[in-house]
């Protein structure tokens, strides 16, 4: 038990996507290989192994302008070109399904309702980079989804679509699933590699980058679930067509996870460049008709934006960057007029403190300080100097840590202070909340 067969509030079956590619034509039970093939699945893989050279595949992905969908937005074709494709040594392909950025739940729906699209995308990527072994790292909190993905892998193996000599092409690619077990930091690509190797998920220094020293020290490419899921459509319709869905430099569709104070939280696949106001409308608008106050547009690590700015912004990398935040994972957290910004920041700050791997001083110590200072302020025990100190500590952590978790902890602090300073001051001066109710 736990959830009925038909979800009470379906997260991707709401029928409100716009030009979907990854979430198109899905049904709760339609995840099997039979259903996937019926909707054109594995045609792209056949086209690739039968008619395309590896370099041509990479060229097509480059032409599409596809950018990593996990949060960093790095150009995918460029990343693939870093791999020594012709070198006859063992190389690895890894899918980062360690979805743990608060607000993000798109990969869960992709994996449970369309697992084969990820398998197909990875097989195509492996062909392009001369890789014969791959792993999909799935975070442990979605255990049932991990088990389903393993079933999908069995189906694909039985059909000869992964494994030895795929489609009699001479190309072999073996794919396995690996599960995480409760560590947000394993979403960082080198921490993920450490975890795959059976160690604590503590990030490595970069350089060297995974394309030269990755899993077990071998050249490795790591991409997000949604990035691989975007590949089959690009192969079937061409990179140029993908680029044309969206805006220049921001091609294709993106699955946005929208949560918080909206009527219909869920995953919405829309072309990049769609206005935020439209996405909000798709999600049923504000819950109980309340007024929009703040939005975190790309997952909790990205700077918060106040309502006026967000309502004038389009959902794409460049527009959100111009507005002062980042598209990130595309996780949109919506907060209404009843929410205390100090309390919201407090819960986020606690998350980073809890999830710091402990390796380097600025993050290990700094995340604790940030949380304790925000906590004092929220509880009415702050003093006037605290705000400057809070901003200074956050600023000093940035750029000085081994990985981006330090930055991820610092950016929300600076952004909340920048846009909602009055609420923090109210907590300090009046020792109570400006808004009243909180979370």
């Amino acid at each position, binding site marked *: *038990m*736990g*959830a009925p067969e038909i*979800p*009470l*509030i379906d*997260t991707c079956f709401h029928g409100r996507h716009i030009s979907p590619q990854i979430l198109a034509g899905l049904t709760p039970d339609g995840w099997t290989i039979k259903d996937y093939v019926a909707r054109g699945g594995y045609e792209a893989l056949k086209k690739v192994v039968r008619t395309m050279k590896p370099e041509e595949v990479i060229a097509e992905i480059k032409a599409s302008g596809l950018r990593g969908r996990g949060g960093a937005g790095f150009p995918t074709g460029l990343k693939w070109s870093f791999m020594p494709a012709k070198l006859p040594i063992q190389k690895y392909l890894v899918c980062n399904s360690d*979805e*743990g*950025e*608060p*607000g*993000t*739940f798109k*990969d*869960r729906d992709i994996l449970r309702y369309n697992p084969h699209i990820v398998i197909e995308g990875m097989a195509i990527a492996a062909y392009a980079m001369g890789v014969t072994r791959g*792993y999909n790292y799935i*975070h*442990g*909190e*979605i*255990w*049932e989804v991990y088990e389903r993905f393993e079933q999908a892998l069995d189906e694909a193996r039985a059909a000869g679509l992964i494994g030895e000599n795929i489609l009699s092409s001479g190309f072999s690619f073996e794919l*396995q699933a*690996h*599960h*995480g*077990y*409760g*560590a*947000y930091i394993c979403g960082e690509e080198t921490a993920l590699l450490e*975890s*795959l*190797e*059976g*160690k*604590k*998920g503590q990030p490595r220094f970069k350089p060297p980058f995974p394309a030269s020293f990755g899993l*077990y020290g071998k050249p490795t490419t790591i991409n997000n679930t949604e990035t691989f899921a975007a590949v089959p459509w690009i192969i079937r319709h061409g990179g140029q067509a993908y680029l044309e869905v969206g805006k220049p430099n921001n091609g294709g569709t993106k699955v946005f*996870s*929208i*949560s*918080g*104070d909206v009527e219909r*939280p*869920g*995953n919405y696949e829309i072309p990049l460049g769609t206005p935020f106001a439209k996405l909000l409308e798709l999600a049923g608008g504000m819950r109980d008709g309340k007024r929009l106050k703040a939005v975190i547009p790309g997952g*909790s690590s990205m700077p918060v934006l106040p309502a006026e700015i967000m309502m004038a912004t389009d959902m794409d990398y460049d527009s959100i960057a111009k507005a002062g935040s980042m598209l990130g994972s595309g*996780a949109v*957290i*919506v*907060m209404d007029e009843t*929410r205390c910004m100090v309390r919201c920041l407090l*819960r*986020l700050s606690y*998350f980073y403190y*809890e*999830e710091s*791997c402990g390796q380097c001083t600025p993050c290990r110590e700094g995340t604790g300080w940030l949380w304790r200072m925000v906590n004092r302020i929220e509880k009415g025990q702050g003093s006037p100097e605290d705000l400057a100190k809070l901003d200074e500590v956050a600023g000093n952590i940035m750029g000085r840590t081994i990985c981006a978790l330090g930055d991820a902890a610092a950016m929300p602090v600076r952004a909340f202070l920048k846009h909602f300073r009055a609420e923090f001051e109210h907590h300090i001066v009046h020792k109570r909340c400006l808004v009243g109710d909180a*979370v």
Partner: protein
Amino acid sequence: MSVQLSLSERPSGPVLSAEAYKKIDREIAKYPADQRQSAVMSALTIAQREVGWVSPEVEAEVAAYLGMPPIAVHEVATFYNMYDLTPTGRFKLTVCTNLPCALRNANHAADTLKAKLGIGFNETTADGLFTLKEGECMGACGDAPVMLVNNHRMCSWMSEDRIDALLNELRSEAQSSTSRPEGGR
């Protein structure tokens, strides 16, 4: 490098069942032959499902089987927060209270559980049935409030009614079987 006692040489016999070892072997086969350590997370998960928690004996046995120093297994068991290093109740309930869930009644769900069970976070009910834990983002924010039962079963939209129904279901499951079912929880 480490001394590997065969399972029959261990003083009290192996902690894990033959079935568990079959599962662990399937996991080991996913990785290169010289990388048995990669299977440590799966091995600990399989062990925890069977034994109920990651005990020092479990760590030592997994270390020996995979050819790892016991401290390396301990590092992994302490690093990933879904492993339990102390015994828990029969049903470990983990509630996410991170911001997106908090915006949709997660704290109310947590308070409801605390009230109904009479315990706080990191505590176990006197009858040994339930342990309550606070969790971080589980990647299902659209389903808020979200809970896990014994790590592997995700429960969504946990209103008071659904919490009631869940607790009743778990209590009757516990009543109808006095021992852990075959294969763990």
